[in-house]
């Protein structure tokens, strides 16, 4: 077990957004989280890498107690994250976006960092764009650079929060392909997405979240063909009909 979430609760002001989440993730597992807008999917991902603190419960990531403020900062060594808005550093080239943390956090030499960065960029098919600034890249290319930036840090777990939602439809495929390749290689992944195709063919397990609760979970074929919970049925009906 590489991620263990135990009875996690989280409120923003008076609103309880996570209402007792339990989740265990095995090494190499690909988990897709689905659910309506505002159900708490992003918040759940963000508690796992300490972007949000939790009110109660425990979160263990490969031995790190993320719920413990003293230990929590260590989680960034093990967990990479990809955001909906890419969040690339606009003042740096693709290469520098990747090398920055390699140099400042991993203390690599310039040559070493560039070598690792170029390997990561090659992996997402963007080695020849290393010298481009983010605004000189398409949305799909920017998101692939963001993935390379996270991968270069050699994380054990990757979090994707609607990584394709900000992309034009024709650019979604190039990003999901990179994500599929990553899953194939055995990366442990937690993926929030509206791409049901990706969920069907890549997920080991699909979680349906509703109002801060994991209402149902299971293999994709089970969730998509025979959901047992009425709310899951409703949600899938809406999404798959659309």
């Amino acid at each position, binding site marked *: 077990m590489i991620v263990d979430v135990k009875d996690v609760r989280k409120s923003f002001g008076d609103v309880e957004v996570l209402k007792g989440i339990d989740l265990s993730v095995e090494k190499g597992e690909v988990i897709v989280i689905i659910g309506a807008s505002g159900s708490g999917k992003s918040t759940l991902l963000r508690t796992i890498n300490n*972007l949000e603190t939790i009110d109660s419960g425990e979160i263990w990531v490969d031995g790190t107690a993320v719920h413990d403020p003293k230990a929590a900062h260590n989680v960034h060594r093990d967990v990479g994250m990809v955001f909906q808005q890419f*969040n*690339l*550093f*606009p003042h740096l080239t693709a290469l520098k976006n990747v090398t920055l*943390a390699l140099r*400042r*956090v991993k203390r690599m030499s310039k040559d070493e960092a560039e070598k690792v960065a170029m390997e990561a960029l090659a992996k997402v098919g963007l080695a020849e764009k290393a010298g481009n600034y983010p605004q000189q890249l398409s949305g799909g290319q920017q998101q692939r650079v963001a993935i390379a930036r996270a991968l270069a840090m050699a994380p054990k777990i990757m979090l994707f929060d609607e990584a394709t939602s900000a992309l034009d439809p024709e650019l979604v495929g190039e990003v999901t392909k990179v994500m599929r390749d990553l899953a194939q290689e055995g990366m442990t992944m937690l993926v929030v997405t509206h791409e049901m195709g990706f969920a069907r063919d890549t997920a080991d397990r699909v979680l349906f979240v509703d109002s801060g609760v994991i209402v149902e979970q299971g293999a994709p074929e089970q969730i998509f063909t025979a959901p047992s919970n009425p709310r899951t049925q409703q949600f899938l009906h809406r999404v798959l009909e659309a």
Partner: protein
Amino acid sequence: MEVLAYFPDYLSGLWITTTASLLSFAAALVLGVITAVFRRSGIWPLKVIGAVYVEVIRNTPSLVQIFLIFFGLPSIGIHLPAFEAGVIALAINGGAYLAEIIRAGLTKVPSGQFEAARTLGLGRTDTFFHVVFPQAARYVYPPVINEFIQIILATSLLSTVALNELTGTALVVNSLTFQTLVAFAVALVLYLILTNVVSFAAAWLGRRMFHPPLQLRQERQHGKTLLKRLTIMAGGR
């Protein structure tokens, strides 16, 4: 013309104006960055110091600030020459305005940038210097250059503490020649040239320093009107 005999004096006045402006601006920039960081820090004494400094300076006349340092400090045993006193006063003054400009710029950096940095494991210092500051610098560059111009113009106040910068020189030439109009017109043109050189240099630098190149369009228009004005003065259209 009699005034033109004093042209070398105007040039040395221009030199004093230029060096005073540059030194004041450089010091003001450092003060401004430090104050902006103070005001954003979570440490309340620093926040209070920053806030009081900015409020005091922005709500009192620059001239009184200059007088306080030049005429006031000697009474507690600190004697500063006019140039040094003037530079210190203008640096303290400009620092307060720059602090507010820089603070606004830092606020404009999207929260996603901080989150990306945190996710990569970057510490606070690295995040500030490698992620936040370079982006804020781009946002604040135009207003910072504008503040630099304001500092250049404010150096004329230093003529009141008997510094022979450009305005001071014009005052002296006026009292020697009584050609008031010409004496001050020469100073005016030299100020105009200085501020426009700064604008052009800043626009040039902005196009090279930032990615994508930063265009200071207003400065360019400003430059064009000067060119027109000079052509007219030279007897052109």
